[in-house]
């Protein structure tokens, strides 16, 4: 089996089987389009990928090199977050930064399955957490300004207060026109609530 060389951003050369490398759509396209397949000395430069991540990715690719091609159905079925193989789950036990970098590189190299499972892992980390927990886990700054916070909360609350008051008033009135007014406003309010 022919080998191909990949060069990471820090100039480290990885020599791997072409078939394994082709799990990456980007590399596959590169090889096919540039006719590098026949040239055993070809080196594919990957300036966006550092060696650590590249090594990890190649490990994953080697383990999964015999996976059958995923059909569209498989992809659709895999939308729930619980279909992660144990080996993959183990593989993805790394700190967050490395995980995010892995995602970015998997996206750049167009390795769909790896991207899927990495994103699922992160989604699992988000699931079931309150916003504060999420902020803490991922170290995200809460950048709602005071006014915006007010806006989000108070807008809803004030609107509802307001409309409830109006509703009660209008309801007690026997005028048909007011009744219609009442109904109209209520619809708007509920649309707001759904946001």
């Amino acid at each position, binding site marked *: 089996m022919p080998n191909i060389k990949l060069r990471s*951003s820090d100039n480290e050369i990885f020599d791997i089987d072409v078939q394994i490398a082709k799990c990456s759509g980007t590399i596959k396209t590169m090889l096919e389009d540039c006719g590098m397949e026949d040239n055993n000395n070809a080196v594919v430069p990957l300036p*966006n*990928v*550092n060696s*650590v991540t590249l090594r990890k990715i190649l490990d994953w690719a080697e383990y999964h090199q015999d996976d059958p091609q995923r059909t569209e*159905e498989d*992809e*659709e*079925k895999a*939308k*729930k*977050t*619980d279909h992660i193989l144990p080996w993959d789950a183990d593989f993805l036990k790394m*700190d*967050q*930064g*490395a995980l*995010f*970098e892995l*995602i*970015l590189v998997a*996206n750049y190299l167009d390795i769909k399955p790896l991207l899927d499972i990495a*994103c*699922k892992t*992160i*989604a*699992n980390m*988000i*699931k*079931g*957490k*309150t*916003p*504060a927990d*999420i*902020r*803490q886990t*991922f*170290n*995200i*700054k*809460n*950048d*709602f300004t005071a006014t*915006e*916070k007010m806006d*989000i*909360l108070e807008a*809803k*609350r004030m609107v*509802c207060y307001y409309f*409830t008051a109006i509703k009660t008033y209008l*309801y007690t009135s026997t005028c*048909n026109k007011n*009744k219609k007014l*009442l*109904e*109209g406003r*209520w619809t708007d309010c509920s649309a707001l*609530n759904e946001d």
Partner: protein
Amino acid sequence: MDNIAKVEHQEECKEICRGNEDEKYESLPILNKEDGSSMSDSNMDSNSSDSNSSSYQLNALPDEMLEFILTYLPPYKDLKNCSLVCKRWRSIVKNLIRRSKMNLHKGLIDFRLRWEIFSPQSAGTLELRSCIPKTSMYVIAGRFSHSAVRYSNYMYVFGGGSSSDTTFNDLWRFDLSKMHWERPFSMGTYPSPKGSASMVCWQEQLILFGGWRYPSLHPPHQPWCLFDELHYYDLIKNRWTVAITTHGPPPMAGHSASIHGDIMVIFGGYQMVDGVNLNSNQVWCLDLHKQYWWRPRLAGNVTPPPRYGQIQLVLDDHHLLIVGGCGGPNSVFSDAWILDMSSDLWLWKSVPVRNKKFAASHMWCNPACKIDSKLVVLGPTPNMPQDFQLMRQARIPVGGAAGAPNNRNRQLERQRWIPGEAGNGQAARGYALRVPAPNRPINFQLDGLNIPLDGPDEQYLAQRRAILNNHQQNASNNNFVNQHNNRNNNVQPRTGSLRNLHKIALQQMEEKNHNRPSSSGVQPRSNGVIAARTNSESSCNGEEVEKKRDDTKNSDMEAANRLQRNLSLRCRENEPFLPKRFDELYEDPFRMAAFNVQNRPRSLSKDHNERIRRMEEKMNALRNSRRNAVAEQKPLKEPSPKRAKRNVLSLFVCDLSNALSDDPHLQWVEHKNYGILPGAPERLILSTMVPGNGELVLFGGVQKETLYEMTHQVSNSVHFLSAPKDIV
């Protein structure tokens, strides 16, 4: 202010404000870079890999990636929490919601949706287990004719009929984000057990009205009864209250209700008026604040014919739409009416429906709901060409399968089915149905399995046979169940399921039929032809012809090759014109018997179909492996799910956008592939469907065998219909 909204707002306030405390740490120097949790301001930095340490933040990912990650979350509470994290997330979540709505809408038009199932039995995956607190490992019992409403994160389900002739009065709720069932133990005056009641949501309350229930068994010989009870369930206080009203509507069930502003409008139903049961087309309104019933004055002479089980939708505050319904035995409506409530005199208008050929059938026992401007209805698959005619029961090959290429096949015994005798009692007995056939050995023995059990195939066949034997015996013991909702509308054609037609055909090709018809001069017809023909014949006959092939096993290589070649050439075509070979119209009465009698004991009927399907798959897998070992042909591609032979729920979509225009009409959207979407559930009636966020949630229902209403399998699984999410 409404309590629940208040509580939510308070929580949100805390969430959003909590972040303020984090700000204190912003100014601390960066201590540890390696652990990736540095507080540096690389929050918004791009993905440069210049630093040695992996100091990537989640926020370093581009928006699309983040959105892609968030698509994996259930679109309910979790997504809402995400929108409160920070500004960027909020806008991403908004985008996501907008996009999923668009996707669902588009998916409805293009029929590019898929079903996913959640059944409590299968909720044993690791992840789910870890999310479920101990107290809520309840499993809801299967039911049909229940009432369901979605409210924020939950789907509330009440009542319904069970598989054992009783009615429920329990209230369950399904947490859509955690995907598990909970049972709120509520206080107050509980409603009586009832099914087919109408339940709607108004101002954080569920309003339940009407319904019927099975007769109670004690004291015996009671009639089933209809209710006119009105109950409110307060979602926040978790409390039932009953409303006593005067001059209310008569007891009714199968009516439909919807909320317009502050009134609940009820239409139709099966009522008991002055001791007489009749269908009605009355409109009743309940003023929700003042709690009184009133009947509107109707202008015009035209009212929709009386019906029950119709679909009622809110078009806007002053218009409601009625579609479908049932007016009695053999009278299923598929028309549409709009009730114009804008003036003091209400007016019914009949709305023409276009493209009726793509309409759903049976819009009285199948669920429907409105998504934006589309009405989504489920229903039985419309008549497909003979190609796809399905038989309900799974195919179970029978017969002595002698694996060894020996002359045992000669002894193979087959029955001859006399075409035209459908579903007769003789078949039900299942065993030796002896009909003399020329050139054929007759005695068909079933329990004398003089077949060598060598080879997994035979063992499987034996297994299946044993199960069938069991079923046969149970068949006679089954009680006839009189379902209230069974109106004897046997309008369904006799159907069944012919699973994996092509796979079976493939099996045939490797098992050459030794006992070919007499005429020695005649080249044995390829099994492929037979298989192809089975495609084209009616379900009944198709089964016959095909089934017999299973009886033989033969490793005649050439024939196998030839057959497969023929098969792959022909099997997908509709070939109604091939002359039928008279003596090949075999029928396997055993299988026919299995088909005829719905003989599953109720207790194990829950995932019976699943089991059969699984067994079939195993058999097919074995067969495939055997075939691969036997011959090196290119295996025939499995039929894509579009052609899968299952009797499933199909989707029908009706466009309502012109219902209120100057030229009011409804138009059914042309379905693709007969509305069959991948992963569709088996055909259920009397289930409920509620709209979720970007998806539709189907629950419950009963699988009704129209042929023999002896047993029915009630489902307790939740099915989600959603658009496939785009991959970044």
